């Protein structure tokens, strides 16, 4: 993140893997068992009542940035992680906070073990052909 002095790149190391503590940013919190695990393709949508998150003292700059990014255009957990240059797990924690504060909600993708509807598959095929 911009305000922290660290270069997020140091988290990434192709092989051995660095020893890092990215969860310092979330004060060591991890998403709790009560929260369902947010899928990488779950879309984060700001609540219309979210107002001006920047004025909310309880939010960290990362929370505010997520709300503002999603307000510009709703996006998936994966896109947020890439856009913020944060590990997916860290983004899940922040988005989980925002869901609890009712500042955003997330779409639920097709539940595991449930197949997408045949009609949706047909639409995907048509959409791909039309690309």
């Amino acid at each position: 993140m911009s305000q922290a002095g660290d270069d997020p790149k140091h988290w990434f190391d192709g092989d051995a893997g660095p020893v890092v503590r990215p969860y310092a940013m979330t004060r060591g919190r991890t998403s709790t068992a009560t929260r369902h695990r947010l899928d990488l393709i779950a879309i984060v949508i700001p609540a219309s009542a979210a107002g001006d998150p920047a004025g909310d003292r309880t939010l960290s700059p990362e929370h505010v940035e997520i709300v503002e990014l999603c307000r510009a255009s709703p996006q998936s957990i994966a896109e947020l992680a890439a856009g913020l240059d944060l590990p997916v797990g860290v983004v899940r924690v922040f988005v989980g906070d925002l869901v609890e504060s009712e500042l955003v909600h997330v779409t639920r993708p097709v539940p595991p073990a449930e197949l997408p509807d045949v009609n949706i598959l047909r639409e995907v095929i048509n959409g791909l052909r039309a690309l």
Partner: protein
Amino acid sequence: MVFGRSSRGQRPIEPVTLKILVAGGFGVGKTTLVGAVSEIKPLRTEEVLTEAGRPVDDVAGVEGKTTTTVAMDFGRITLRDDLVLYLFGTPGQDRFWFLWDELAQGALGAVVLADTRRLEDSFAAVDYFERRDIPFAVAVNCFEDAIRFPAETVRTALDLDPEVPLLMCDARTRESVKDVLVAVVEHAMIRARQQREPAVTT
């Protein structure tokens, strides 16, 4: 700074999101394939893992535990305002199987990208999707300097079931990748129909 709220009656569209995995050995062309059809430059996400190889957000009290990161790249295809397909290139190594588990959850299907010079690199992925009953197609990425084999030879070498689509492709070419993706989704659709209406025995 954003002050305005979205005006009433103009609620943001909540798209249905779907994903297809692109698996295969090192350097087989996964990122190239994703980039050929994605409307965005393939993006990179990272998962932070404990040394034990579990994603850290699954465990409590990770602070202080040694972690490593693994990268996945992905692309996006907006098929319609309300229908978005994501493609995820999965890390090829077996030791990242748990990432595949997460990605495979709810995936509509998968592409196993293969290189005839190193077919054995695709065994793990073929095995994985067979076991989990995830519909997949095999796409042979035809590098210029590789010897071309007839499809049947590849099918036998990979021991594929007859209904698994097998295509020759060029991961750099949009049209070719589109054909591969259509083959995966068609296969998934046939499977979905079969499971919904169990075959009538006569």
